[in-house]
């Protein structure tokens, strides 16, 4: 048990070191930091002095270790574009992204699970066929096209909802929330639908196939034979077991969602981390790119590790492996 957990921890640390190395290489070799920071027309001596002050003339390995140390202390460098610490920029944008992702996840679960169950109970029925075809269209619809159409219909033509920004915000101890004002909530509707649709199809298909699997198992057939009420069999006995993998996948998807929020945030000019990142790609603002890579890498590794370790606790079969 301890061996498995420590193995997982070791792997996670290894991956984080690798990701940090990539970020370091970007930071150090993409564009010349000295050229970016020095004043115009500086002499070679001034450049050398700055180079030495930044520690850029040390051996690579030492530079990497120093970079790693700075990252551990939360120092992610200074943005070329905003001349602000990158860590501060990311923290300011974090609430916007997290609120969007949270609402989108709740929406996709609330819709995806019932739809998946409907498709599983009557796989050849008229309703499930329509839902199945709709998911194929949903998969083929890029996130930005969904967003664009929603803007066209609800913001341009009907003028019901705003097409960009977060609306009025309330400051709760440093956390800028849009949940407490009408305009904040209205601004949230279109982006969160766009992001939720991306995940909805996946959850729906997963619930459907898991549910079909569970329904054909012996204990469900036995429950029918005992004459238990259908609602009890479907709702309590089958759905619960079918939801296990859904919980895992949703957990793993949150990392994916934060990355996919990049597209949604750009379409709706939602001032979160994703928009910061797309703007950094075009500028190009290398410290922000490297920091975002580190952030997403850290998130993925943490979620994966927690899910893996939780699984070894929950499922005894995995421990023998």
């Amino acid at each position: 048990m301890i061996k498995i957990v420590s193995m997982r921890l070791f792997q996670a640390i290894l991956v984080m070191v690798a990701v940090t190395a990539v970020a370091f290489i970007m930071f150090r070799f993409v564009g010349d930091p000295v050229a970016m920071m020095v004043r115009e027309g500086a002499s070679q001596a001034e450049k050398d002095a700055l180079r030495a002050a930044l520690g850029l003339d040390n051996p690579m390995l030492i530079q990497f270790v120093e970079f790693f140390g700075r990252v551990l202390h939360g120092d992610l460098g200074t943005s070329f574009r905003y001349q602000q610490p990158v860590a501060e920029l990311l923290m300011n944008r974090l609430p916007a992204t997290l609120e969007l992702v949270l609402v989108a996840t709740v929406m996709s679960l609330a819709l995806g699970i019932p739809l998946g169950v409907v498709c599983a109970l009557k796989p050849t029925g008229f309703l499930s066929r329509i839902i199945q075809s709709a998911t194929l269209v949903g998969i083929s619809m890029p996130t930005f096209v969904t967003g664009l159409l929603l803007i066209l219909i609800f913001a341009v033509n009907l003028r019901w909802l705003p097409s960009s920004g977060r609306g009025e915000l309330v400051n709760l101890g440093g956390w800028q929330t849009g949940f407490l004002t009408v305009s904040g909530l209205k601004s949230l509707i279109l982006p969160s639908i766009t992001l939720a649709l991306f995940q909805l199809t996946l959850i729906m298909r997963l619930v459907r196939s898991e549910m079909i699997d569970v329904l054909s198992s012996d204990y469900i057939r036995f429950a029918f034979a005992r004459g238990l009420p259908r609602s009890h069999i479907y709702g309590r006995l089958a759905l619960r077991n079918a939801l296990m993998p859904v919980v895992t996948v949703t957990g793993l998807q949150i990392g994916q969602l934060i990355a996919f929020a990049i597209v949604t945030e750009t379409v709706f000019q939602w001032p979160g981390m994703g928009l910061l990142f797309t703007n950094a790609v075009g500028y190009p603002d290398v410290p922000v790119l490297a920091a975002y890579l580190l952030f997403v890498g850290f998130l993925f590794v943490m979620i994966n590790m927690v899910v893996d370790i939780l699984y070894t606790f929950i499922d005894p079969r995995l421990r023998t492996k």
Partner: protein
Amino acid sequence: MTTRAFLQHRLPPISVIIAGLVLATMIVLVIFAALIAPMDPRDVSSYSLIDMEIPPSFMDGGDPRFLLGTDNQGRDLVSVILFGLRISIIIGIGAVLLAAIIGVALGLIAGYFGGIIDTILMRVGDVLVSFPTILVALLISGVARAQLSGATVSEWAPVILICAIALNEWVQYARTVRASTMVENARDYVRAAKVIGLPSRRIMLRHILPNVMSSVMVIATINLAGAILTEATLSFLGAGMPATYPSLGTLIRIGNQFLFSGLWWIAVMPAAVLVVLVLAVNVIGDYLRDRFNPKLMAH
């Protein structure tokens, strides 16, 4: 069995046939784009600002010369979309081919030799796939922009895009091919080939590869839809094809600026073509997966 029953048994469902026809039409149109398109979007002399912002011909104020209307520069949307579709398809197929070649090669090596090579390759793959393709491709695009001049980036955009997408997608091929190779490796015909002393390369390419190709084809079709979508998304975000040589994603990005001026067709027309293209590929991919992968048939 009557001929009719035979045909019904053999023919794929009607949706797959329609998808195939749509895809085939698109490919033919794209190959002959230069002949079919009413004008050449890259030739500035073939269009003029007088024709700008004309709605599609089936709407009020439309012009029969421009079936889908014109954009803000007076370019005929049919022509622009045809050439954009061509770029989207080329980049999609290019990325899938590159990913398949890298993935099949590394998968064969990992599965055939096993041991430390296998462990390293698969670990690297694990790390890569945990990052979404879009994120990796955006990073590569940002790095390219920081290292090269703007003109160079525009010129090499298709190559950068193909490499960026393939960098993440090869893992799927490698995993599948590795698993199949390990199975084939234990079979008598491979062991016999080893016993008579054939070189490893020949065994991998001539004996094992043909037996793992069908699953590679299925993954490739399913991935093609994803690759086209990724390219479109990157171009939409401004990290893909430049406006001087637009793909469907770039066209939607340009059209996006005119949504609020009521010129919806500039964005919606290329978006519709993109969705139809991806839908057609997805329908065919789904069918192939069910057909060639009996394990998935149960669902």
